[in-house]
């Protein structure tokens, strides 16, 4: 009834359709049908060995072969240190003021952050997805959904764990979303990743006051990232007359190209507000 060519074409169309359906189903959540940790456990130890060797070679190069430029760097660093000491004094004052204000508001911290340091041992093989593999897993108390930070700000979130390794989705991944707000004006929105390494700050109403250079921090309302952790700075702002939301681009503070060590927050800080008696 059908020619061989026709059967082939129908077969290919059916296969493509099935393929799209399967991908749609699996894209809803990160799943490997329980075997994900096996693959990570198989590859990650080798990644760890190679990464440590590369880092060792890099350190050797930095410490022994780059000494020539150290004297100049030393002068610059001393200047920076003086500046930092001055800044520290100011921050100390701010911290004291903050403590006073918090006590006034009956703002109580119920938990202190317990963090665990981890090393980055591998990055995503694809240029289109932004994930990393770290050398800590379930045996270290790491669970899916925990926030991952560095000193400069939020790095991402744990999306998969094996016994000794975990996969982290960075905030620049297109599937990432962080509930955030502008530190200065408290304008709220959602930070989403883009394949360019930048982030979009969506759902910020036109009426809100946002300027280029403003710092964007986590709002804490997504239940994943502790409130106040820095995400990035507004780098581009477009206000269209016909739109109800602003078009904002945010440059993350974290340099994801040079990510080597991260901190996983084991018990994300929770704040408890108590009403006045």
């Amino acid at each position: 009834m059908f020619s061989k060519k026709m059967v082939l074409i129908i077969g290919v169309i059916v296969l493509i359709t099935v393929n799209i359906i399967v991908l749609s189903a699996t894209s809803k959540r990160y799943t490997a049908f329980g075997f994900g940790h096996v693959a990570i456990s198989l590859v990650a130890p080798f990644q760890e060995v190679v990464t440590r060797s590369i880092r060792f070679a890099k350190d050797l190069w930095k410490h022994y072969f780059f000494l020539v430029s150290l004297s100049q760097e030393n002068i610059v660093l001393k200047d920076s240190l003086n500046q930092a000491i001055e800044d520290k004094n100011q921050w100390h004052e701010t911290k004291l003021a903050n403590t006073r204000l918090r006590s006034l508001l009956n703002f109580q911290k119920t938990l202190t952050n317990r963090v665990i340091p981890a090393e980055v041992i591998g990055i995503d093989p694809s240029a289109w997805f932004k994930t990393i593999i770290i050398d800590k897993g379930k045996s270290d108390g790491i669970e899916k959904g925990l926030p991952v930070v560095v000193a400069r700000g939020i790095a991402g979130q744990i999306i998969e764990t094996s016994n000794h390794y975990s996969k982290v989705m960075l905030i620049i991944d297109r599937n990432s979303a962080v509930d955030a707000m502008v530190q200065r004006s408290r304008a709220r929105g959602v930070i989403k990743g883009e394949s360019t390494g930048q982030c979009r700050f969506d759902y910020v109403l036109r009426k809100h006051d946002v300027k280029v250079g403003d710092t964007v921090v986590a709002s804490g309302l997504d239940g994943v990232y502790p409130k106040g952790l820095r995400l990035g700075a507004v780098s581009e702002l477009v206000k269209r007359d016909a739109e109800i939301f602003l078009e904002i681009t945010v440059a993350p503070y974290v340099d994801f190209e040079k990510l080597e060590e991260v901190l996983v927050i084991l018990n994300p800080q929770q704040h408890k507000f108590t009403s006045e008696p």
Partner: protein
Amino acid sequence: MIYCFYIGICLALIILQTTVLPNLPLFDRFYDLLIPFVIYLALYRAVREGLILVCFFGFIMDNLSGGPFGLYLSTYCWLFIGVKWTIKYVQVANKVLLSLVAVAGVLLENLIFLGASSIVGPGLVVGGDTVRIIVFQMIWALGTGPLFLILFRHLQYWFNNLVSGIFARRSNPGL
């Protein structure tokens, strides 16, 4: 034995791709190194043998990547089927054609990734950066794709000679 050899090559390529290349300038936007290997399997190995390995590689890559599960698996399978189908009609023995096959493989993978992202992901924005990444990867594939294929071929010969040498020595201890 041959499967262990191929899995070894696969692991070496994945580790090279996820740990070494990102640290090298210019190589941080290198194409997926398993593409030439899948092309190699499609060109020189039997369907059943190749398909099993391709599925294994896809599974490993899917678990290491942050994309939807099955994306690499689908990509490698389609690439394998595509190359197998192509060599029925086109002779791809010379190096120029091998370069083109490698470039086509890289393009196919990127198109599947972008297509899948736009269908099942949070929407796709094809900007200048996306095009730049794809063009950069294709240029790399044009230059280095055939080299990888030749390297895999030499490794295969070396491995075959090694195995046959071992078996010959075992069956004839006087050698």
